[in-house]
């Protein structure tokens, strides 16, 4: 049979995603796996001894609202940002032009409020005499909320970078990451509350 190896070179960059989007989705995949591992550990652990459900502080609902607000404002910031410059082959070199500073500040403040609210929930639990080692449900609560908070802090750094560099891609990655962390939070909350 005729083996035709030769074909004219063609442009192969058919992927519609930019470098930073690939990295972003990669990060989302690993973070998903991390929380999925905790979730399955949670269910396995629930099946063995010493499990006493802890009443979760009510402030978590307020926090959920704050995080949703933060997600919404960052989305507004993304939508309202106009960009100059375009894509240059691989790298999207577009810059944020009219900076949606208002929404970004709003989003940041809401995120900080969320983190403060999370700390408050820890304090309330501690005040009720429930600490990390008190029982497994509490352990999962502290560790999972803590990890989620750490990931949110990472997102704040990303947001700061977006603000300083005014890169459009960073901005939109930060926004996607934000929504993702919102979803993770809903998952964590549902798990801790209802599972």
């Amino acid at each position: 049979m005729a083996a035709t190896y030769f074909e004219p070179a063609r442009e192969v960059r058919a992927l519609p995603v930019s470098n930073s989007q690939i990295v972003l989705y990669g990060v989302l995949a690993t973070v998903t796996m991390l929380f999925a591992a905790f979730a399955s550990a949670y269910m396995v652990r629930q099946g063995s001894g010493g499990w006493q459900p802890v009443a979760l502080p009510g402030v978590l609902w307020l926090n959920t609202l704050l995080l949703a607000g933060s997600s919404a404002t960052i989305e507004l910031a993304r939508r309202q940002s106009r960009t100059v410059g375009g894509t240059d082959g691989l790298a999207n070199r577009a810059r944020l032009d009219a900076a949606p500073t208002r929404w970004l500040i709003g989003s940041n403040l809401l995120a900080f409020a969320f983190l403060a609210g999370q700390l408050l929930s820890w304090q309330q639990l501690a005040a009720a005499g429930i600490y990390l080692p008190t029982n497994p449900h509490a352990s999962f609560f502290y560790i999972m909320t803590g990890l989620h908070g750490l990931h949110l802090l990472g997102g704040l750094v990303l947001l700061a970078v977006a603000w300083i560099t005014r890169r459009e891609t960073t901005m939109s990655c930060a926004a996607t990451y934000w929504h993702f962390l919102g979803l993770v939070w809903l998952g964590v909350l549902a798990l801790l509350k209802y599972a």
Partner: protein
Amino acid sequence: MKRSPITALLLTVFSLLVPVYGYFLWSKKILPAPASLHGTGIDAMIKYSMVCTGLMLLAGHVVLAVFIWKYSRQDRATIGRVAGKTEWRWALLPLILMTVVAEGGVLVIGLPVWKQLHVTGKPGEAVVIEVVAQQFQWSFRYPGPDGKFGETGLKYATDYDLIGVNRKDPAGKDDLVQTAVLTVPAGKLIHLKMKSKDVIHSLFLPVQRVKQDVVPGMVISTMFTPTKTGKYDILCTELCGLGHYKMRGVLNVLEPAAYEEWLKEEAEE
């Protein structure tokens, strides 16, 4: 092109020697034949895999040797790329072989043996013995004439009773606790209920082909029927700390009558 005839010769010989060395090792059996009912099944599984993979290993090395010998002597490749279809057709060979050898072996030989080990017989049929592992000692408990195990606790443990049976508990009064030696009757189904006091251990009766991890926080069952009387080694096969390598026990298989006698004697003491 530079030739390396000596290397080619050495390689050819070497690849033929690998299966020979494998066969040599396999023929030097040091472990005694199995002395339990399911043990022969396990050995059959291992032998089946050994024969099948051994033959494949031999065939593979012969082909490799021929290729090396032949194709290191030609100056230019004589075969180019082959059609995709031909390639897929060749893939059927490993596909069928591995399906038969690996999956076939499991379904035909493996599963029934696995079942023997894990499906509990009717209650009362088996001799139930509790196994308690701790760093670095095995303890064995027999329920006594009442057939019930009594309560245990750390505070009741003594040098002679590492398990710590509460002798005030009616069910525990007649419990018999042994350290390091597991005495069982031949020809009866033995049901071991295993617990650990500290870390993970694993009970290994090599000659009976029994191995089961003993996990703290769980009660794990394993079953076997010894077929030959005699004294055998018990080993630990899950890393459990400094004394892991000398966590030795003894399996003492007696004739059923001798076993009953032994039980009576021990109860009197």
